[in-house]
């Protein structure tokens, strides 16, 4: 069984195609691993074991039937088990968003990103834990309990896609979907030692992604290798008539790169991403990874993204402002939890007060204030203008370099409870991931070493809009020459 669990997406697909493993065997192996470790990790909110086995058996039957018609192409991911973060809808499967307010919500439609993977043949094992409405950096804000980091269960897995990151790190699934509004794919990927892609804004449909910050939300993939993340990403990406922010330009796709592709690639190191207060080992491992890439032919130069320090206050005004509008829909009338009330006003107040957790209330309050009469220009308006300056920093940088490399977070995984009483300290964990969302560019996180305590260190690389293939190539070639991504936590 260990052999099945250690298969990457690419290896699993190869094995499925050649009949050396069945989807049912793979799916059972995942479910057994979840059974064995879920008490320790708590990566899932909802498991869809029976449905997954039925779908796996159907995939096997289809593959068998296709042997008689070898010319008919099969869906490319047929029979591959994956997990989905519980903020993306799957029709008929409860979608909680980590919130009590959606405890019994059964969505009648499937998110486009998920549907495209289903059309490509994946088998969904379950819905993974998340900070409530994806608001958090540790998965401690879930109404369904915390997720534990597989490398050290006294520590957080990062967030908000902490369930997906922990599930992939603990070999419960070969890949999982996440979402990234301010770092929620990349930071948990870094904390759990896996690879995570945050796509360009507009690249992957958000239809069926429960809205948090609409000008920032993206859906991405967490997997064990850059190649695996790429395989799923290209199936999900592309124009969707159901999401007006998706861009209808042809998808170039991605080919396995030749090692020569790194020669002459210009990597920029932003000086603002190496702060005096950060964990020295994070800087050390990231700089050493950049040296590795330089050794493979890349050229490295220091650059500046001068408005980086403003990304945090800009984000924590814009995202809560958008959240306060998006979450107005939870009123106890049409779906979700409903509190007892005598009047309509009481119904709204009681439902929302009992249904939302502390962090969601905090962000709704913050956003409501930032948008309220008399404060709009000073807070939201000013934040939107500074956002323009942050975008321009990236545009300027990408005139000088092809990709930017930096740490994902200032520290490795912190302890459970370490920041729960101090929201500002928690927000500071996002300082290196937020600018990418504000600029809308793609970012990819992958492991580049371990600290003295055995915790993974992640590096992120960033590229111009719609250049995800560059990110996959750089990370793929790095992973061809290193073995950090192959390490497994002992559980």
């Amino acid at each position, binding site marked *: 069984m260990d052999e099945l669990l250690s298969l990457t997406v690419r290896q699993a697909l190869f094995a499925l195609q050649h009949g050396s493993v069945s989807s049912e065997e793979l799916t059972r192996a995942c479910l057994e691993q979840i059974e064995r470790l879920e008490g320790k990790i708590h990566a899932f909110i909802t498991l869809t074991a029976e449905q997954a086995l039925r779908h796996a058996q159907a995939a096997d039957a289809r593959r068998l039937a296709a042997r008689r018609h070898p010319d008919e192409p099969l869906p490319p991911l047929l029979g591959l088990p994956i997990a989905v973060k519980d903020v993306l809808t799957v029709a008929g499967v409860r979608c909680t968003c980590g919130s009590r307010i959606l405890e019994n919500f059964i969505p009648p439609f499937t998110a486009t990103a998920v549907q495209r993977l289903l059309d490509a043949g994946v088998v969904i094992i379950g819905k993974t834990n998340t900070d409530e409405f994806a608001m958090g950096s540790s998965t401690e804000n879930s109404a369904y309990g915390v997720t534990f980091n597989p490398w050290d269960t006294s520590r957080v897995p990062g967030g908000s896609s902490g369930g997906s990151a922990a599930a992939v790190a603990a070999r419960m699934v070969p890949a999982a979907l996440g979402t990234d509004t301010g770092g929620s794919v990349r930071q948990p990927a870094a904390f759990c030692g896996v690879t995570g892609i945050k796509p360009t804004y507009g690249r992957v449909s958000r239809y069926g992604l429960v809205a948090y910050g609409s000008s920032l939300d993206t859906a991405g993939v967490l997997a064990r290798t850059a190649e695996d993340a790429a395989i799923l990403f290209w199936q999900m990406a592309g124009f969707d008539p159901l999401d007006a922010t998706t861009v209808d330009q042809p998808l170039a796709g991605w080919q396995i790169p030749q090692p020569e592709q790194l020669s002459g690639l210009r990597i920029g190191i932003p000086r603002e991403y190496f702060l005096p207060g950060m964990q020295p080992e994070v800087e050390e491992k990231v700089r050493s990874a950049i040296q590795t890439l330089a050794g493979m032919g890349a050229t490295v130069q220091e650059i500046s993204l001068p408005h980086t320090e403003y990304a945090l206050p800009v984000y924590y005004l814009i995202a809560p402002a958008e959240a306060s509008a998006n979450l107005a829909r939870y009123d106890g*009338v049409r779906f979700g939890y409903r509190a007892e009330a005598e009047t309509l006003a009481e119904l709204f107040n009681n439902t929302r007060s009992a249904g939302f957790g502390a962090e969601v209330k905090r962000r709704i309050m913050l956003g409501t204030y930032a948008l309220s009469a008399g404060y709009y220009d000073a807070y939201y308006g000013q934040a939107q203008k500074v956002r323009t300056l942050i975008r321009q920093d990236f545009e300027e940088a990408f005139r000088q370099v092809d990709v930017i490399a930096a740490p994902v977070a200032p520290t490795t995984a912190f302890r459970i409870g370490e920041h729960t009483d101090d929201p500002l300290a928690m927000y500071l964990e996002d300082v290196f991931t937020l600018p990418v969302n504000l600029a809308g560019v793609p970012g990819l996180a992958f492991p580049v070493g371990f600290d003295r305590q055995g915790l993974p260190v992640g590096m992120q690389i960033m590229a111009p809009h719609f250049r995800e293939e560059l990110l996959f190539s750089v990370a793929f070639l790095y992973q061809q020459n290193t073995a950090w991504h192959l390490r497994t936590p002992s559980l």
Partner: protein
Amino acid sequence: MQSIIIRGMTLTIEEVEHIAELARLHLTEEEKVRFREQLSAILDYAARLQQVETEGIPPTSSVLPPRSRLREDEPRPSLPREVILANAPHPYQGYFRVPPVLE
């Protein structure tokens, strides 16, 4: 306009109550005290944005190039009523039921 943000600003309990009312949240006394403290700290941190010169800088509302895309106005079936009402906490004869708005 922008001078209303002052470093070291603290929200009053009345302001916290006002924001909660706008957000349709009912806060306990303890929550009011805690949110007052935490929101004040976050807003104080955000005040550093005032240092940035943004004269003549356009706001970013979307990172995508501005464009509007229209689709054909073709009638299509929507989700059936019973599917929508399946998630409603208090459906009533094909409707969403709420407490009285007016007595």
